[in-house]
């Protein structure tokens, strides 16, 4: 499997020296190149082989890793309360910083694409682009601000040992967070597409609108899932005033997603009005 387990002073097992992260990153690259060939209709065989190779790598990872899942899950519920083992890794600031940096590169590239396209047009948005109703976007902005404030409040309560208030705040944040993708994918997108107001095929503005808000919406979904996981651990009593690294990491990710939304709101809704 290429992994080795080490035991720290606290008895926490850190799995290191795994080859799989590098292999999966390699497979992701292969998939991107393979799909590029397939979608462009050039070197179809090479494209097919590249996508197949990456699928094989992913299958290999799942085969080798799923064997550990049952024991990991059974240990998950047995983690005692108020121990440093409870919510390991306690200090994951470096991890979340790396994640935020990679996300910054992703969104930096996406916004770079947006501005590169925008530069090609004398008028932006291009003529024929509808003025988008920003009511839902305003509600979504309000939701994100409320959820960011609420999760900060929850962490503040946790640091003072008020666990009930912390749990209430965390669950409230999750509910607010879940409303965001519901409004986006369940209300706004269907409204725009089914009524033929703005589709990806309308023009370049439509294409960039769905690409950027889609990438962002996917990140919000990941954030909601992370909050759901954090909620479960909170309900199991795995966080304490000295042990809240994972909650802070989740909230940092959420704040990052929030700030990206502010740029989107400014460029896509307010920017479509000029």
């Amino acid at each position, binding site marked *: 499997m290429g992994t080795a387990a080490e035991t720290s002073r606290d008895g926490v097992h850190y799995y290191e020296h795994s080859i799989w992260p590098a292999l999966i990153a390699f497979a992701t690259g292969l998939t991107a190149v393979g799909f590029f060939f397939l979608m462009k209709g050039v070197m179809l065989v090479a494209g097919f082989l590249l996508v197949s190779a990456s699928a094989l790598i992913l299958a290999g990872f799942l085969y080798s890793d799923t064997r550990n899942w049952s024991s990991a899950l059974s240990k998950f519920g047995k983690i005692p309360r108020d121990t440093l083992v409870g919510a390991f890794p306690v200090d994951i*600031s470096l991890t*979340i*910083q790396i994640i935020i940096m990679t996300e910054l590169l992703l969104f930096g590239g996406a916004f770079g694409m947006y501005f590169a396209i925008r530069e090609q047009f004398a008028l932006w948005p291009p003529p024929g682009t509808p003025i988008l109703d*920003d009511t839902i976007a*305003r509600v979504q*902005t*309000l939701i*994100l*601000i409320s959820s*960011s*404030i609420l*999760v*900060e409040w929850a*962490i503040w309560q946790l640091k*003072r*040992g008020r666990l009930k208030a912390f749990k209430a705040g965390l669950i409230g944040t999750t509910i607010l967070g879940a409303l965001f993708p519901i409004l986006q994918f369940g209300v706004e997108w269907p409204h725009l597409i089914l009524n033929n107001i703005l589709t990806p095929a309308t023009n370049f503005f439509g294409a960039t609108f769905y690409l950027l808000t889609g990438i962002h919406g996917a990140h919000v979904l990941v954030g909601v899932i992370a909050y759901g996981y954090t909620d479960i651990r909170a309900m199991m009593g795995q966080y304490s005033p000295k042990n809240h690294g994972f909650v*802070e990491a989740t*909230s*940092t990710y959420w*704040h*990052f997603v*929030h*700030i990206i939304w*502010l*740029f989107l*709101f*400014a*460029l896509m*809704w*307010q*920017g479509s009005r*000029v």
Partner: protein
Amino acid sequence: MKLEDFGTFVIFAAIYAASTLGLPKVLFLAYHIEIGVIPTAFVAIFGMPAVFGLTLGQFIASIGFEVSPIAMLSPAISFVGLLVVYFARKFSTLAGCVAYIIITSLWLSYMLPIVSGTPPNVAAYSAFAGQSIAVIIGYLGYLVAVRKILPRNTETALKQ
């Protein structure tokens, strides 16, 4: 700025950007009162994350509108004003707020005639009055927070 301050930074940026972009404009003479300016005094409580957050919020609000390139300098001017509030907090937050009003109003008095063709005298007094109203509202909120909310929380924390 520590990682745990990231939330404060984002919340201040969001308050500025969302209130400017999402709320109806409050027109005072020739100048829109920016609701996002109201939290200025809170820089004295929340520190540098609030300074950076409000500056970024102003930048985001600027890119939402098709503004003149010179107007894009406003976040930088505002940043200087917020730094003054931050460094003045140890002796007088009010003095910092007054300095902020003067710095940003002078800039707006210079910029508004260029961007919107407003007569300079109208731009000057409307900018000064608009900024003053917003900052003073925030300062009153700051006083309430400092005198009523913060001591209560500190007491509770000490008891625990």
